[in-house]
């Protein structure tokens, strides 16, 4: 299942693009896949198997925290956004 993943400018330094494609049946698998394509990716958003609490992931604009966390199932055509906190003002 090819899923579209949108990242913010900070993560773009790792992926080289704003929107990338990944594979996986769940969000967790998708992130592992992205890490093999873009080394260092997972490190920016996870530690010890769980998401940093200042990073939110949205499946089609719904926070996965209120779905099934990293076990949230994804399918072809879904859109994932990875959103770390920004503090700049």
């Amino acid at each position, binding site marked *: 299942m090819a899923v579209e993943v949108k990242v*913010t*400018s*900070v993560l773009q*330094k*790792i992926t*080289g693009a*704003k929107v990338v494609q990944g594979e996986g049946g769940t969000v967790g698998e998708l992130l592992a896949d992205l890490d093999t394509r*873009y*080394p*260092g990716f997972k*490190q*920016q958003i996870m*530690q010890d198997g769980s998401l*940093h*609490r*200042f990073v*939110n992931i*949205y499946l089609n*604009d*719904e*926070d996965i*925290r*209120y779905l099934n966390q990293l076990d949230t199932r994804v399918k072809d055509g879904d859109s994932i*956004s990875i*959103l*770390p*906190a*920004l*503090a*700049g*003002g």
Partner: protein
Amino acid sequence: MPVSVYIPTPFRKLTGNRQHVEASGANVAEVLADVDRQYPGFRQLVFGSGETVPAHINIYVNKQEITSLNGIETALQDGDEVAVIPAMAGGSGEDEAPKRKTVGALTAEQVNRYSRHIIMPQVGPAGQRKIMEASVLIIGAGGLGSPIAVYLALAGIGKIGIVDFDVVDLSNLQRQILHQNDDIGKPKAISAKETINAYNPDVEVVVHEVPITSDNALEIIKDYDYVINGADNFAARYLVNDACYFLKKPLIDGSILLFDGQVTVYLPGQGCYRCLYPSPPPPGMVPSCAEAGVLGALCGTVGTIQATEVLKLILGAGESLHGRLLLYDALAMEFRQVRIRRDPNCVLCGDNPTVTELIDYDAWCGGAFDHTNEEERKAAEAAREARERAAASMNA
């Protein structure tokens, strides 16, 4: 039994501009308690610090005043309408609300100055007066604070507070429209005041030339109706969020970095910054504008949206951004929204709060992880190095 409760205009800042809300209860007292549960702070607006409905507030059930019925015990049925009507404008607990500015009829000069507002049906002379009676505190006179302050000054906000203890620096002038070349070296709050009053001498500007801390936040924020966040660090964001929650002030939040922006509105009791980001990143994990940069014009876009949102709350117009996080991607020129909501597990505004007073935010943001400082320092360092390697290989 669901009843409809009419919310008077001065109280609508608590209910996201809703004119009517649904509530449950067998009688008026229970319904008011239910509205307070849904929109914390409502009880205080109606009752002040007392136990009985004060003389300047009338409550009607189906257009009949409750003193001619059974007072606060008046029984209700499905479909009844309860209306809360302050007998005088701006009625709120007098021992806790600061003296509100009241504006009489607009002068000829004001009618001219604000004519482009007044001719719009959503504003009119009454709406312009509400703007002129409102008070807004802006945290930071920097990238976001600048366009916020300028547009609120132009709109005629009655009182603008500016919190900033820094001085104007040459590198600020790439984006901070409150300050100009001749202001370099001047305290930013003073430079802000001068710019605001050069635009509009009618605006009362209060400068708070101090860092906002747990010791002064409640004292500073209590005198304003709304707070807009233009802070540039996580500690200040969590502090302002918590203080606004405790004081029941709507908070218009915005943040920027590189080519991205995020904006939302937090209404007391309906989600807060901690619901969205329960813990801050360890130091070094998320770069600051000084480290990563920001497109100057981006500050204008995001800050102006923040100013727009506070004006909408004051006017009771349109739909506020509360419950939605607006994401701005300037490179793609794309706006998106994601849903945000109150987290029942939130330590501040959830069902079982554990944060009941302001904490030491610098210490908390400095050691955000369960790991030892050494581990977190290494993690942040490794993450930063990975970003730099990736960027370098792309530029090679």
